[in-house]
């Protein structure tokens, strides 16, 4: 019943506390968790320095505004992603209506669109000089902005709309996976006991899917929290932009303190959500699976369903892709050069590498927990996920000290033993970038791998071991083939996120190194939208293919699903 990306990992309550054994798995897991958590720890360390009374100034001036905007953004995006994510997930899983098979995967497409890209596309469309307002002026004979009112896209509400459109796929993805894996029996029982389809949805299916919905929502909200580009572009001051501004302009300890506060708040929220369903269990009590019911919709219901599924795709994907495509085509001759090929290769290489490392680390941790159990390992696994709760721009700065520390240490050892100065081994290399990505996106891989592995019955391990295969062999030959779907899902999420990632890439990359994201950003930040379009569109296109693969993997993940279907 665990969702594809439940970032919390398995419930380990009830697992008995054992004395941690000092074996390779435990030692490896401790090292891995400490390494991955080091940037977060670095931020906390910076927060300990004196802030020269800056907090008082901030609290009496800008903090209330940051707080207000952040909370409104959170609530707005939460409502938005639930509306755009849960409904369509239910419709495509349980109902039959025209285009369902297409909507099933197309609803994931906005995942490939970076929030900062959709923000500048809609600004371009809806601002005064954009085609929409020009058409309206021509239609009604208005001559200037003073003649009429038009909603300002560059506002808090605009930011809520933009983020809802590109972050709802997290909710959709996990909720749909949960609906698919629900046993129909419970729904049938509900119907037999006299509940209508709507009531069954609200009283049975929805509560059953709550852990998945919560996991999806928390992913979407973490992304909201991490977003810098959109709110910056829309002139909305949130905690995240505030931290960055204080960091650069005022003082580092104060900024680190803000980041630490925010981090604690996020952990508290996650904890409250988990606690609130502590005494509820969401296990399937039967292994009977049948084809999902497939309510046939007709009449207005049919078209309402089509509309509910088409709207997020059109707004979150089709329109941005069309606008970018239009600009990119006009600028194609100037944009498609050797530089573009290098940017593309760099982006794909980083995303592929980061996905691989994240998944390898996640499998290592999850399998360690499975072999040894115990709270220590399970706790470490979760500890290794905390990077996701820190905004990328903060994490990027936090990654600097550990990397430099490691480099200095290696340099000192090499100098002492071989009299060679190695200089910077990691800082300013691709390795530093991969490190930052792993810290930031480990949670995605952890959740996916962990929930897939939990679903594999322990008797498999027993059988393999009885037949003489060691733990590593069992992992390689038994588990990995079984959890392929989860691995693929986790790898895809990391891949797509790295393609879009900006703050860490800008700060930590090597010299002369550009990715599609940094190139698009450089042009867009100088209001050169036309030149930014091609790299931005390429990010979207490169993200689509894995997203489609992911969608197919989910359909196959349904228990009892015919192999190859």
């Amino acid at each position: 019943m665990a969702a594809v990306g439940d970032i919390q990992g398995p419930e380990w309550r009830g697992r008995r506390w054992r004395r941690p054994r000092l074996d390779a798995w435990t030692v490896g897991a401790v090292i891995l968790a400490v390494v991955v958590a080091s940037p977060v720890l670095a931020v906390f360390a910076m927060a300990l320095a004196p802030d020269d009374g800056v907090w008082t100034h901030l609290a009496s001036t800008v903090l209330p505004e940051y707080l207000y905007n952040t909370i409104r953004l959170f609530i707005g995006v939460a409502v938005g992603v639930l509306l755009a994510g849960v409904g369509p997930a239910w419709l495509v899983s349980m109902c039959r209506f025209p285009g369902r098979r297409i909507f099933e995967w197309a609803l994931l497409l906005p995942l490939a669109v970076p929030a900062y890209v959709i923000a500048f596309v809609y600004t371009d469309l809806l601002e005064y000089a954009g085609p929409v307002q020009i058409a309206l002026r021509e239609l009604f004979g208005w001559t200037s902005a003073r003649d009429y009112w038009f909603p300002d896209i560059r506002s808090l509400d605009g930011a809520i709309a933009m983020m809802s459109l590109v972050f709802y796929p997290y909710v959709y993805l996990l909720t749909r996976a949960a609906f698919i894996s629900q046993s129909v029996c419970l729904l049938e029982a509900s119907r037999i006991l006299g509940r209508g389809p709507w009531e069954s949805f609200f009283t049975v299916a929805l509560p059953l899917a709550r852990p998945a919905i919560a996991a999806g929502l928390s992913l979407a909200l973490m992304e909201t929290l991490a977003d810098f580009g959109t709110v910056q572009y829309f002139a909305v001051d949130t905690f995240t932009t505030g931290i960055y501004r204080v960091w650069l302009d005022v003082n580092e300890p104060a900024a680190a303190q803000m980041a630490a506060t925010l981090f604690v708040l996020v952990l508290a929220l996650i904890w409250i959500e988990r606690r609130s369903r502590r005494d509820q269990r969401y296990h399937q009590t039967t292994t009977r699976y049948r084809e999902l019911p497939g309510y046939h919709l007709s009449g207005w219901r049919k078209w309402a369903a089509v509309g509910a599924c088409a709207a997020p795709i059109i707004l979150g994907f089709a329109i941005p892709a069309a606008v970018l495509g239009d600009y990119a085509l006009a600028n194609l001759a100037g944009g498609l050069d050797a530089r573009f090929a290098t940017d593309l290769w760099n982006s794909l290489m980083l995303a592929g590498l980061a996905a691989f490392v994240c998944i390898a680390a996640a499998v290592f941790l999850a399998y360690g927990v499975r072999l040894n159990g115990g709270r220590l390992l399970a706790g470490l696994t979760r500890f290794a996920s905390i990077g996701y709760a820190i905004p990328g721009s903060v994490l990027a700065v936090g990654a600097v000290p550990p990397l430099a520390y490691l480099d200095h240490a290696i340099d000192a050892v090499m100098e002492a033993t071989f009299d060679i100065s190695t200089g910077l081994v990691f800082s300013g290399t691709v390795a530093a970038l991969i490190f930052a990505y792993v810290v930031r996106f480990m949670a995605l891989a952890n959740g996916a791998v962990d929930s897939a592995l939990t679903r594999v019955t322990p008797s498999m391990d027993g059988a393999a071991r009885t037949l003489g295969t060691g733990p590593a062999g069992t992992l390689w030959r038994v588990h990995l083939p079984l959890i392929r779907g989860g691995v693929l899902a986790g790898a895809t999420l990391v891949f797509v996120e790295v393609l879009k990632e900006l703050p860490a890439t800008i700060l930590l990359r090597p010299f002369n190194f550009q990715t599609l994201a940094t190139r698009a950003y450089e042009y867009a930040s100088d209001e050169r939208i036309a030149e930014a379009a091609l790299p931005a569109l390429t990010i979207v296109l490169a993200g689509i293919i894995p997203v489609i693969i992911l969608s197919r993997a989910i359909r196959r993940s349904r228990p009892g699903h015919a192999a190859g279907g």
Partner: protein
Amino acid sequence: MTILQKSTSLAAAATVAVATFAGPAAANGGEVNLYSYRQEFLIRPLLDAFTKDSGIKVNVQYVKGGILKRMQAEGEDSAVDAVLTADIATLRQHVEADTFQAVKSDVLAANIPAQYRHPDGKWFGLTVRARVIVHSNARVKPGEITRYEDLTDPKWKGRICTRSSGHVYMKSLLASIIAAKGEDAAQQWASGVKANLARKPQGNDRAQVKAIWQGECDVALINTYYIGAMRHNEAEPVQKEWAAAIDVVFPNQDDRGTHVNISGAGVAKHAKNRANAIRLIEFLSSDKAQSYYAASNYEYPVKPGVEWDPEVASWGKFKADDTDLWKIAELVPQAVLIYDRAGYR
């Protein structure tokens, strides 16, 4: 299994990739590593010209905030040789964080006037830009606004646009007002302009001119080179219309003069290619590079005697505020607090 096999070969390919991309190769005498706060496409032609002249390859990373932290943390292992910035305050931050070193160069001393470089050679100004008032030429009469202080006049209520006070150009302007008239007057100025804003501060300087063109506001504060960049924008010709909607005013000509800022450079404290870094900065201060800046980016050359671009010259000569830039940079953190208190985002 095939996925895993693919992953394994991916990992192998990755190892090669890491080796290939693992940062700049160790100094072989023919390189210089540059962090630039200015977008790479703005400075690339200039750097290419330097490489052609000197045979020295320039490796660039366009950076934003955070790079100072990185230079500090990496210390003597740092690979960077020189840093280019777009303003004086960032140069001062680097000097105070001790990430720049002193450089003695007769060429630089000859090319750059003393007020535009550090006495010990820890930073060098390379171009000058002025922060001017522009106003709608349809809705504002010439002479209606002549000083920065006029922006607080209630007659402009709901008619002024600026970019966010978080930007360094806004901060150093306020710092120059603190320097000239003291903190209280600066606070009144910030609150007064805030009260007259037509909209929440947003966008870059260009976006303010666009807002005048579309009638959202009548008056704005911008840096001079944007005027040239818009008037000659062939890629997006609509910007020529924006620029045609405004008149340019160099403020405070009858008293302290118009606030100016510099773009500049410093040599990194632990530069491995120190000589090359100095050569690069010397090149950027030469007649050739200075007239390129002037012609392609519409900035004022820092080197006396270098001819202004005709576009730049068309805005006319002006009196610049001669307050020590170093002093202005020192007041920037104070300016941030004042903007905060004024609620000026």
